[in-house]
């Protein structure tokens, strides 16, 4: 039985060898991780803030100042012009965006007042409001300039996809603010470059490189190879089929795919902790006849647990705790990817496979990892909050959860690679 198995694989290989043209494309998408990082480097090398240099930075800053000034004056003009017809509260709100940055309370009140009055269409008070705002723009200039500097830096950093996602998530608020306006202007200048790079690089974070450090990417690569090979084998088996046998096979493939539903990464099982992990993992694979060993991830979890139990958080530097958390999540992610890869190898080397059990196990495993990542992220975020307070405590807590969702994304990818591996076992 295993003999014929290997023959099929071999013939699959030979088949690829004969199809020279498709071979190139095939191997090209074998390493999406590495390639995407390559793309990232390429796309960022042109536009990253590194290549901007100090001069460009200053020139951008001054450009931005200029563009804000024009925007403000434009808005003022439009606003004043619109007095002749019906005043547009939106325009007025736009002018106030800057003030909002520094004197938010006051300006919200003011905006409210302005809106009320605008809807009431009182010309006098409207005019006085316009002058009030413009005088505010002058007096608030100092803080505004500072704000512009700050925001410009954000935009410069935004061109670096490495931190772009984080910044965007941190600054997520729906109301228009100065940075949005500046960003719009900049997007207009640089075309759609930024958005393009974002699409090409779905999984980018600091963790990416740490993950490579812990071999996570190579585990994923190996799993992907197995996934592609299984897919190829399925296609070869399908080729000679026609009529009913083809329809039957198609049905089986679809059934497996439908059964194999990705668990919800948000529904967390809070019974899964760094100490109970071993039991849950053992239970997840108990129906499978494979000797998958979880030693490494279990012992690393217990190691983390020791960190969590250490009492004296108050003496700890929060930056240190933060760094530990990122390393922990990257390492856990790599170890879980290793488990997936080993699991696929073991399944593919079996002569008799039970698809229903396999599907169930992989789903269970996946939801355990989701819960584990979440548990570890929460614990670390707690620790950061309890550690010696520093400037960015809040930001750090948020980033820990960002990294957590990053780890989740890698696991989701591994999950999707499993489909053909399970399907081939069902045929």
């Amino acid at each position, binding site marked *: 039985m295993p003999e014929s198995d290997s023959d099929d694989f071999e013939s699959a290989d030979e088949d690829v060898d004969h199809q020279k043209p498709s071979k190139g494309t095939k191997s090209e998408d*074998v390493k999406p991780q590495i390639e995407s990082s390559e793309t990232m480097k390429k796309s960022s090398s042109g536009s990253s803030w590194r290549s901007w240099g100090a001069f460009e930075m200053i020139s951008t800053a001054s450009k931005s100042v200029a563009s804000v000034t024009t925007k403000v004056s434009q808005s003022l003009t439009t606003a004043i012009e619109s007095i002749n017809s019906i005043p547009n509260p939106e325009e007025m709100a736009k002018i106030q965006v800057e003030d909002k940055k520094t004197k938010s309370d006051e300006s919200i009140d003011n905006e409210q007042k302005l809106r009320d009055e605008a809807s009431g269409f009182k010309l006098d008070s409207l005019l006085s409001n316009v002058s009030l705002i413009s005088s505010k723009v002058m007096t608030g200039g100092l803080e505004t*300039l500072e704000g512009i*500097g700050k925001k410009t830096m954000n935009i410069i950093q935004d061109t670096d996809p490495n931190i772009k996602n984080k910044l965007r998530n941190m600054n997520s608020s729906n109301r228009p603010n100065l940075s949005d306006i500046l960003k719009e202007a900049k997007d207009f200048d640089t075309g759609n470059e930024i958005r393009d790079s974002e699409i090409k690089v779905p999984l980018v974070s600091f963790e990416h*490189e740490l993950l490579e450090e812990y071999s996570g990417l190579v585990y994923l690569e190996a799993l992907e190879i197995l996934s592609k090979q299984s897919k190829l084998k399925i296609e070869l088996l399908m080729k000679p089929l026609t009529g009913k046998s083809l329809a039957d096979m198609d049905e089986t493939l679809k059934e497996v795919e439908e059964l194999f539903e990705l668990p919800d990464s948000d529904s967390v099982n809070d019974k899964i902790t760094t100490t109970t992990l071993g039991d849950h993992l053992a239970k997840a694979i108990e129906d499978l006849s494979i000797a998958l060993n979880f030693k490494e991830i279990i012992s690393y979890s217990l190691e983390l647990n020791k960190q969590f139990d250490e009492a004296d958080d108050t003496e700890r530097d929060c930056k240190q705790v933060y760094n530990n958390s990122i390393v922990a999540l990257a390492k856990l992610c790599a170890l879980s990817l290793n488990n997936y890869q080993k699991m696929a190898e073991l399944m593919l080397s079996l002569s008799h496979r039970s698809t229903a059990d396999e599907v169930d196990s992989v789903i269970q495993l996946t939801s355990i990892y989701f819960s584990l990542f979440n548990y570890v992220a929460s614990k670390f975020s707690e620790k950061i909050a309890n550690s010696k307070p520093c400037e960015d405590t809040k930001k750090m807590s948020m980033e820990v959860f960002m990294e957590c969702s990053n780890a989740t994304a890698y696991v989701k990818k591994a999950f999707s690679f499993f489909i053909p591996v399970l399907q081939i076992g069902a045929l």
Partner: protein
Amino acid sequence: MNENFSRISRLIKSKIDDTIDKISIMSAPYSYSYIFKYIIIGDMGVGKSCLLHQFTEKKFMASCPHTIGVEFGTRIIEVDKQKIKLQIWDTAGQERFRAVTRSYYRGAAGCLMVYDITRRSTYNHLSSWLTDTKNLTNPSTVIFLIGNKSDLESTREVTYEEAKKFADENGLMFAETSAMTGQNVEEAFLETARKIYQSVQDGRLDLNSAESGVQQKQPQRQGRTSLTDDTQTNKDNCSC
């Protein structure tokens, strides 16, 4: 006005420092310029995992469990003043994993084909291992034949001359090694890397192809490092 400017410039600088701080903490600069993919193949029990362990840890693993599917090892070496990360795929020798391990050959820049000098059967199987390798890798893949367990001279079944002849006939590099004493282990891995690097230099290997098993790392991080230096000097100049 002057004061404002210095405030802004200080702010920008602190922002830059902050970012660089984060980047350098989270991701150490690439300390290598190439990654070479190796595979180690050969019959069960010839000492593939022990060779890898000796090469990466400089230690002999006395009792080594059977490898499942593939295990990985890495080590950064230097060839011609270039740092190269070897990413080694150590395959299982057990027959039941053969179908799985065959999938991993593609895209290897180097292939270490191992037999055991004290077991003739492992030598006799070399032609089938070689056929697999030739079929599944690309023509530029460097194949290094390794006769392991050279420390067990008393139970030798395959002579050096015989294996050397086989290697020469098939255009393979060859050495006898001992994963236990470490003899020639380093050399086998490094010689392979040198030959691959030579192919890269000669342009025989296409770096853009994933098949080649060689990836070049862009020296992107260095740019960042030098920027760090710049800002630091700026800070020193501008201690106003």
